[in-house]
């Protein structure tokens, strides 16, 4: 499998990372080097092997479905690049 610049551009778009047109060939080359390395996995016989979900056989704990936290608007917003009137502020989303 080989990644061309069009696929590289699509991956960048899916990852929401802007990549200049001029940088796409180099990026595609790096992807191909890494994917070439990963392709060794095709040699392994994985028939009948379940994909690992959890490395330690443990059942996740349950807890009561109750509110245990909250009322911290100031602290939640304290690190926002832009906050207004108690909300995170972003560029216009809906025209």
């Amino acid at each position, binding site marked *: 499998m080989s*990644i061309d610049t069009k696929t590289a551009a699509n991956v960048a778009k899916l990852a929401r990372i802007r990549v200049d047109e001029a940088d796409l060939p180099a990026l595609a080359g790096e992807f191909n080097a890494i994917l070439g390395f990963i392709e060794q996995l095709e040699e392994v016989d994985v028939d009948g*092997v379940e994909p690992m979900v959890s490395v330690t056989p443990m059942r996740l704990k349950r807890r009561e479905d109750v509110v245990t936290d909250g009322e911290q608007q100031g602290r939640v917003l304290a690190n926002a690049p*832009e906050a207004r009137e108690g909300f995170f502020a972003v560029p216009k989303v809906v025209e």
Partner: protein
Amino acid sequence: MADLTQMTIAEARDALRGGETSSVELTRACLEAIEGADALGAFVHKTPDLALERAKAADERIAAGDAPAMCGIPLGIKDLFCTQGVASQAASKILEGFKPEYESTVSGKLRDAGAVMLGKLNMDEFAMGSSNETSVYGNAVNPWRAAGSDTALTPGGSSGGSASAVAAGLCLAATGTDTGGSIRQPAAFTGIVGLKPTYGRCSRWGIVAFASSLDQAGPMTKTVRDAAIMGAAMMGHDPRDSTSADLPVPDFEAMLTGDISGKVIGIPKEYRMDGMPDDIEKLWSEGAAMLKDAGAEIRDISLPHTKYALPAYYVIAPAEASSNLARYDGVRYGYRAELAPGDGITEMYEKTRAEGFGAEVKRRVMIGTYVLSAGFYDAYYNRARRVRALIKRDFDEVFAQGVDAILTPATPSAAFPLGKEVADPVEMYLNDVFTVTVNLAGLPGVAVPTGQDADGLPMGLQLIGRPWEEGELLNTAQVLESAAGFVAKPAKWW
């Protein structure tokens, strides 16, 4: 009294309890050492005022007579840990200016035990790297140099600042995190001890996430005894991390009996790599001989899927990273790109992430995006998770056959020069060839310094233990440490 910064945690604890020194004195000595060590690039956010305040409080607690072992001990904290009110950036531009409103569980446990945070330590960006060269702060530098050379060497990565700081005596010990070898490889490169606990021993809450099924925090210390003391203080169940194990944490220090007679130590044949330097080969066989002399049985074992660990890791870790790092969007914290007139929210995301992430992080996020994308999920991600199950099965089988611990080299070489040309990203990934299997199988592993190469650079061996048996693992590690008698320190040039 000897140089306070050269003390181990155990020595300092005893001296504090005996009234021979104070936490304020210890802390001042470390702060002074840090001030003179900017050339190492280890401490990237210094917190001297906070440190002295905590040291005073620790001295009061020690005087009152019921202080825990870590009380008054000056530590460095990796920048990956969120620390309340103190910059926590994961060495990334995208978290520029971020000061958490909360404290990670692990650093909080150390703080509550009375440990003194001296500041935050350099690392590879988002813990992605093996040389500390992907950091927004610039490189951390190894205090060790090859004999007769002034070439700057890497302290390893990603916990490079932690390793450099401990090896140079800037702090008594430091926290690290390990996703594929990020505690053990830098420990081996700097002649210190690094413990990666069993997955689930330390809470991940408040530690900036890289690959959630692999990430684990652990201590980086001067001795195995210190790893036992500090490790126990970092571990324990936390309701805020659903993968943290609800198991009691034993007194690891009390388990350091020095007796390993009858223990079975496995030597995996697949770890004997083509082109492995003679120095490493020799170190490994000498280590096995030391454990044999101490009464252990040395047994050749096979872990047949070892070869596939790195490729499986480079599917699973980027996949999890692409998901975890989706949160850096310029909305809730950290960096937001300057926008042009007319830019909408998509431009904000794309520009923020393009400017905020470094090259290696972008590469891994995009690889992760690719292997999880429609049409490739089964071929890459599910296949890697199946191979991971086989890697874990290899270990389960040798443990079931009575093997107590596995001895391997920690790294394929000693520390290499900073700025070395790397032909492709995969070449750097090979640093983790001996350590990454342990993360995939969720096992505890410890790097112990046991020798020096022809240039005088430290080299380490790795011991891998059964799940949850850090106590027994550390006991074996201490036997190896004592037999090797590694006492060399880097000559001060900084």
